[in-house]
């Protein structure tokens, strides 16, 4: 019998080890799996790779991840803290303690989507003619220069959704889905924290992400 519900954070994150790669959903304060993120630092892991749209959301969620130097590599579209003073993660990057893959947001989303869809790489006009394309494989299609981008995958994906059922079917509220839907398809283990685990299975035409992509669901209230 399939039952993807778990009862606590340690079960939700079981198997996560040092050196692992993690995709973390969220845009603004929508769809941030803050309960799961705050459970990471106490696990004592190091050399983690974070794949996340905007890294400052991690710092806002739990600054100890960078304070304790648990992050070794970041793939992101926005590696900038608020204000003019450099954030801890910006300083660690400048000292070479954290390496960085900076990616345009649409390319970021599509690299993850490709990773979950069995497409190893694709060409896109985004970033052609910019410094990001330097040294990269480029090719003309229909008279337009395009850049070769490789798919992204991860060991774990951490998401937040509004509702799940025991099959792992997900329902998102508002703009909660953002990168999470693609991330769930591109990770070996997908863990979802939800506001509510439905007593009944979700109606099939209200399933935004099918349970085949989800491994564990944990009920946890939204944190701010």
């Amino acid at each position: 019998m399939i039952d993807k519900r778990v009862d606590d954070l340690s079960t939700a994150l079981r198997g996560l080890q040092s050196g692992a790669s993690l995709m973390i959903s969220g845009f603004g304060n929508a769809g941030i799996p803050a309960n799961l993120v705050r459970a990471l630092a106490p696990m004592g892991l190091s050399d983690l790779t974070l794949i996340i749209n905007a890294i400052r959301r991690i710092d806002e969620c739990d600054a100890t991840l960078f304070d304790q130097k648990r992050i070794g590599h970041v793939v992101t579209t926005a590696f900038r803290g608020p204000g003019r003073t450099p954030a801890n993660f910006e300083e660690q990057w400048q000292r070479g303690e954290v390496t960085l893959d900076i990616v345009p947001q649409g390319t970021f989303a599509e690299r993850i989507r490709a990773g979950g869809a069995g497409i190893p790489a694709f060409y896109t006009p985004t970033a052609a003619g910019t410094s990001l394309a330097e040294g990269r494989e480029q090719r003309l299609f229909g008279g337009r220069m395009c850049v070769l981008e490789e798919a992204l995958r991860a060991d774990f994906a951490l998401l937040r959704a509004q509702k799940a059922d025991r099959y792992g079917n997900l329902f998102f509220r508002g703009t909660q889905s953002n990168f999470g839907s693609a991330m769930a398809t591109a990770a070996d283990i997908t863990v979802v924290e939800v506001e509510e685990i439905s007593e009944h299975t979700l109606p099939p035409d209200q399933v935004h992400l099918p349970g085949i992509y989800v491994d564990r669901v944990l009920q946890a209230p939204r944190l701010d």
Partner: protein
Amino acid sequence: MTAALSRDQMAWRAAQDLADGAYVNLGLGMPVLAASYAPDDRDIFFQSENGILGVGPLPAEGQGDRELVDAGSRVVTLRDGAAVFDSAASFAMIRGGHVDITILGAFQVAANGDLANWDAQVPNKGPLIGGAMDLAAGAKAVHVIMRHQTGDGGARLVEACTYPLTAAGIVKRVYTDLAVLDVGPDGFMVREIIPGLSRDDLAAATAAPLTFADDCRDLFAPDISVNKD
């Protein structure tokens, strides 16, 4: 009387060019102000790249759903006919050429349409690209709102961008506090100029050659004293 346009006046002017039925993406900063100034008789859908087609007005203070935000991370509402979707679908919409216009902010625009708006080379700060490169590459038309000059009087309309490019050769129109300019095969063509500013003064504030349209007229924007945003 020479009065440069305010931020809201620039946004108002850019909004007047949005056609009835247009699908429009607004960048952060000044561009997003344009949503407040689109003419009421036009049915316009604003796209937000985190996954909204049909962004509505901001909710009253303390109201709204915190799981419903726009690309500037503001809690927003949805208009009638809106839809929400995930980021990969949103950027497929953008990259696939379905969005009619994106209005973006910029540090520099070059006479060949090159756009520089993502890396101001601020020391000690990390890079931030967001969706600008995808929007610039994917929208059917790219319009820019920016001040004509930097705070210390440097030109932002230039022969060649000195800041890192966001995309090459894609800007079609620029709205500044001094003028409205089209970017074409012959570089910048001035369509509108604020009353009282001479053509020579505008040229002096610009680091690329200007041509003036035969029907070049006064740049008009209403007095907007209250920021509607």
